[in-house]
């Protein structure tokens, strides 16, 4: 490991052990490159963690298991693991997703040259998992690379104006600076569904930078039968909109504004 390389903690939240997790878990953790600067964490309830630890796989010896004895919703699991990982950066890997082989090499290059960026988002390949076959349905995060979204001299950077018109960025697979995540208050459990959007907005309002690296970094599955995110699908449209409106409320950014004044 080069001296200037930043450590990255890969966090895999697991909440329920079933056939699906049995099928995908090994594939997910095997997609994490075998590099000294990467530390792998699996966080979940004790019984799920035990089952995962019993699965076969070359990477098993490298996994740090974090037992979560508290709430097992996505945000609680992530917050617990972020506090435990003690790495310069962290990234969340869903147990049924995969990193692309080239991702972390590109992340390190960008961390080295774009030192003021707090969040590096990947170009994500999205697959529909609702049928037996994995059907590619497109990209995620690509919009930030379009000149119609970003300012011409800042292609790839997320902006408040941009977020107000497009909010659907995918943060799984993204590499986030741990200290900035903690300083800005992490993810808010009080804003279900729109928590990533609210987090991005809050980070950028606080002067942090988020940049989409124009390289394929992550393979994300949609509509997995037991996905935690699927629960949000049942939220009525009006209620979903309410969460996004809450996320935009000024309350969250008041502290920053006071600091500026």
């Amino acid at each position, binding site marked *: 490991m080069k001296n200037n390389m930043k450590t990255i903690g890969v966090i895999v939240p697991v909440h329920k052990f079933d056939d699906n997790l049995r099928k995908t878990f090994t594939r997910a953790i095997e997609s994490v490159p075998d590099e000294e600067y990467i530390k792998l964490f699996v966080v979940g309830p004790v019984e799920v963690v035990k089952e995962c630890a019993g699965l076969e796989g070359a990477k098993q010896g490298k996994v740090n298991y974090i037992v979560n004895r508290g709430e097992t919703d996505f945000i609680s699991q992530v917050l617990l693991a972020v506090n435990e990982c003690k790495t310069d950066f962290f990234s969340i890997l869903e147990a049924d997703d995969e990193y*692309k082989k*080239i991702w972390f*090499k*590109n992340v390190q*290059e*960008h961390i080295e*040259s*774009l030192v003021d960026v707090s969040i590096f988002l990947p*170009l994500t390949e999205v697959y529909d998992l609702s049928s037996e076959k994995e059907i590619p349905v*497109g*990209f995620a995060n*690509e*919009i930030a*690379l*379009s*000149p119609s*979204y970003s300012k*011409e001299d800042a*292609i*790839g950077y997320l902006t408040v104006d941009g977020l107000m018109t497009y909010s659907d960025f995918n943060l799984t697979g993204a590499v986030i600076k741990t200290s900035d995540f903690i300083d800005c208050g992490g993810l808010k459990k009080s804003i279900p569904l729109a928590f990533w959007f609210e987090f991005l907005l809050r980070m950028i309002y606080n002067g942090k930078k988020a940049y989409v*690296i*124009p*390289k*394929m970094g992550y393979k994300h599955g949609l509509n997995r039968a037991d996905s935690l995110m699927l629960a949000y699908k049942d939220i009525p449209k009006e209620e979903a909109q309410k969460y996004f409106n809450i996320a935009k409320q000024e309350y969250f950014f008041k502290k920053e504004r006071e600091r500026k004044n």
Partner: protein
Amino acid sequence: MANNEVNKEMPTSLEEKKTTPKEVVLERVKAAIDKLDKKEFTVYFYVIDTKGVPSGSLLYIYKMAYELKELGYNVMMLHNERGGDFIGIGEWAEKKYADLPHANIENQKKVAVSPADFLLIPDIYTEIMSQTKNLPCKRIIIFQNDEYFTRFIPLGVSPYTYKITDAIVNTSNSQAWIEKNLSRLKTRLVRPAISSTMFRKPEKPRQLIVNFVCKDGNDTSRMVKPFFWKYPELKWVAHTQLNGLSQEVFADALRNGAITVWVDEEASFGYTPLEALKTGSIVIAKMPKKFADWMKTENGLTDAIIWFDDFAEIPDLIAELVSRWMNDDIPQELYDEIDKMGKLHTREDMKADIEKVFVEGFFKERKEDFESVLADLEKELENKETTNEE
């Protein structure tokens, strides 16, 4: 047209000296040799004011002048502005080139050149070749594009009509063309230089931007629109048309973008693709009518460029390259070939050619010519004196 500094050094008239014409000529020849020895002559370069529009061919001339100046020779850039301000190249080229001494021949009406001087005229200025045919200096054509040369020279006229016997060429294509069509015109090659400080590798990772550099702006639309029609899933891929930019901004854009698409079928040298390659960009290029030396290898064309011949190929080519680039799947062999291009057409190459062509060539030969004339004249005068004594 008259340059005051040059005027001061002009020989005095026949009557003032009250000497015989042959003696005057003898003195002039001696003065010319002396000037050549002491580097007191001037190399004039006739240039056009492109009014802020960047031009690789024009920069080639400025670079030549700059290197001569660096070697300790006097240079002067001549231009002809009938009203309106001279804009020059300061807006888009490095300051050191714009700072070379300039003179507007329109204001000065007469440029008083001495026999030791040199006047270099770009290929398209056949009118200047004609107007200057009785000047005592050595005149040389800077020949960069046979298409343009044949377009501008009047029918029934050749450089010999204008008493020009020498040309500087920028590629061996031009050299071959001249040898074939104007065999009495002596050619010498000065390879253009691409600034390695300007066109260098990026310090930051590149962005997914496809840069289009097309001589005809409509060609960009001919490529971009079908690409987005055929690959709507890639409609977010940024593309820019790089035209009329300063060298610095242009180099930045080439360095920043992943892919450069170049179309200029009449280009004789192809500055843009080589500049792009020197920044490490992947280059897609439409085959020009003629391939410059650097584009050719022993086995055909360089593999550093992805060539195409039909605009219909472009959507698939861009889509494949974009996809491969996003996945870090560009073959290493391509990058290796691109890296090789970084070593071509350096400033050192151009300097070496200039020393060979100008210092060891034109300047030395001119002096030898004068020395030969001087020897003949001295002999003649000696014979005359002997005859008179007898």
